[in-house]
């Protein structure tokens, strides 16, 4: 054990990260390191798109229809201005992918956050209170599990299209997608949290807090919640890949994000039309990006699951 630091001067955050078991296990496997670097690069590319992207694909003034269907540079007829070619409108593929990833990641993170808050909240309540409330919440979860996620997402999308006026729907489309994906994924959080809470609830430290006279809600948030966050973090990471893929599927089917805010799924759908006429790069590169992104996030999630499991250390 390191000597306890004097109060008021805890070791720096970076120091603690590099000293932690988690960082150690991260550096043990090149697959994990590789996924981490991939995710980092993709996220930086997506977040920095307005600065880093070689072209601003949202500015119609910069589009040259003459450059449409330019192949990647290493193919004959390629143009060094467009590293991996252009699409049917003459947009630089690299830039559209970077901007598209922004939307994909935004929807993915927002959907995960939404289902995490919903699932963890319901799971905590169900596990801590038990009885009728628990039975009610878990039966709803069972019913939810009986439907495929994509079906629920389609249903939510369909209902919102019917219920909202058209211009309003376009404005809210992003939120609708987030809601649709979030609602379809909350059950795994709720189940895990409920199970863990039921174990933690019986432990003496929770009983001790009850004897002290702490309010049940405070016990849940301050005592139980931190002890269930490990598994939740793992599910959230794996769920991020799932959410990104679900969003891509929805957008590919044309019910996801609006065409004015293209995500990776929209790009693949767009390229799909030209796949058989020789312009393969329009669909393949967004698809590859999606695969690398989802795979890296998934591998990171697998690593996190093993690293946080004390039995596998």
């Amino acid at each position, binding site marked *: 054990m390191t000597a306890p630091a004097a109060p008021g001067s805890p070791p720096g955050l970076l120091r603690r990260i590099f000293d932690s078991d988690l960082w150690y296990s991260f550096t043990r496997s090149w697959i994990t390191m590789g996924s981490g670097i991939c995710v980092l690069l993709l996220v930086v590319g997506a977040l920095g798109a307005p600065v880093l992207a070689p072209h601003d694909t949202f500015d119609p003034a910069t589009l040259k229809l003459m450059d449409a269907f330019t192949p990647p540079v290493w193919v004959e007829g390629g143009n060094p201005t467009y590293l991996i070619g252009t699409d049917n409108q003459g947009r630089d593929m690299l830039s559209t992918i970077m901007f598209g990833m922004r939307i994909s990641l935004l929807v993915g993170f927002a959907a995960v956050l939404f289902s995490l808050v919903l699932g963890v909240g319901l799971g905590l309540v169900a596990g801590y209170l038990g009885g009728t409330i628990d039975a009610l919440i878990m039966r709803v979860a069972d019913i939810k599990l009986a439907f495929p996620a994509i079906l629920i997402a389609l249903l939510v999308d369909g209902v919102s299209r019917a219920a909202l006026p058209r211009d309003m729907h376009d404005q809210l489309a992003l939120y609708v997608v987030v809601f649709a994906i979030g609602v379809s994924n909350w059950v795994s959080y709720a189940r895990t949290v409920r199970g863990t809470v039921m174990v933690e609830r019986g432990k003496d430290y929770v009983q001790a807090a009850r004897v002290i006279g702490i*309010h049940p809600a405070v016990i849940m948030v301050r005592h139980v919640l931190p002890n269930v966050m490990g598994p939740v973090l793992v599910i959230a990471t794996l769920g991020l890949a799932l959410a990104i893929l679900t969003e891509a599927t929805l957008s590919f089917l044309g019910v996801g994000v609006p065409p004015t805010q293209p995500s990776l799924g929209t790009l693949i759908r767009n390229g799909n039309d030209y796949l058989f006429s020789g312009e393969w790069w329009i669909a393949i590169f967004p698809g590859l990006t999606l695969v690398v992104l989802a795979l890296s996030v998934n591998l990171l999630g697998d690593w996190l699951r093993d690293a946080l499991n004390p039995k596998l250390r």
Partner: protein
Amino acid sequence: MSETAARPLVEVQDLARYFDVSKPLLNRLLEGGKRQILRAVDGVSFDIPRGRTFALVGESGCGKSTVARCVVGLYPLSRGKMIFEGVDIASMRTREAMRPFRRRLQMIFQDPYASLNPRWRVRDIIAEPIRAHAILSGREAIDARVDELLTQVKLNPRDGEKYPHEFSGGQRQRISIARALASNPEFLVCDEPTSALDVSVQAQILNLMKDLQRDLGLTYLFISHNLAVVHHMSDEVGVMYLGRLVERAPSKELFRFPRHPYTQMLLDTIPDIDMTGRQRQPVAGEVPNPIDPPPGCPFNPRCAFANDRCRTEVPVAKRAGEALVACHGIEEGRVPVIERVPAPVAA
């Protein structure tokens, strides 16, 4: 003397706690079968004068811990009263009504590895009751109080910055005691506080608890299955069997003149360290299933003195010398009471 001084701090009257252990309604309807009620505690009464220690002993599963949890309010009572300084706190339904009493009775748990939240610093664990009851305000005042409590339980104030996993079992139990003391309670319920510890550490913790009792005037309800520990700690002892008190007597009296056949059997099992040549009797038989207790005296299947009356009629506690004993045999004088030399306690 005023009346409050004469009145015991804690009075437990006819305390009972039943658990419904039947299968879910749907299974009962489909498979048949009746409701099953587990009478974990069935009519236990005792009182504890201020500054004294009352011990509950008994085998595993006899309901000792359930009594402890009922007394601190972790379980609602199925029947009976838990009177603290003249007020029945078991009848209180709201947390708000309980609030003034919460501070004054605290609990020390059996397993020091489970009773401290692994993710909290020791300082925050000990400060929790202080913050919860707003006993002190301001970081410095609370820190000073936590330092004082850590010193009181013979730990270093610097230990407050550590996490529970950095401590041994005995040290953790000291932290647990410090937390229990943080709200200046008058009454501590100790549920087997030393049974998870090494023998050498047990003695340290017990002596610490005795010192604290003397210095702070604490009242203890002490739960244990270890008769040597009970002998060392308690002023009065209650022997529990299958959810009932079978004998209640001052500690000295109980260890010298055990009356109830079950008490006699328990004392016979204490290891004979002095080599007096006494034959140790193994514990005979097993505790019956509390879901389906035997008719009459719950001890009758294991009792050498049981007769027909014992098998049909539940005995009630009657005074015998300084003790209260629930036994037909003692009442009728058929059970011999032999004076024993209590084994000296190493602790």
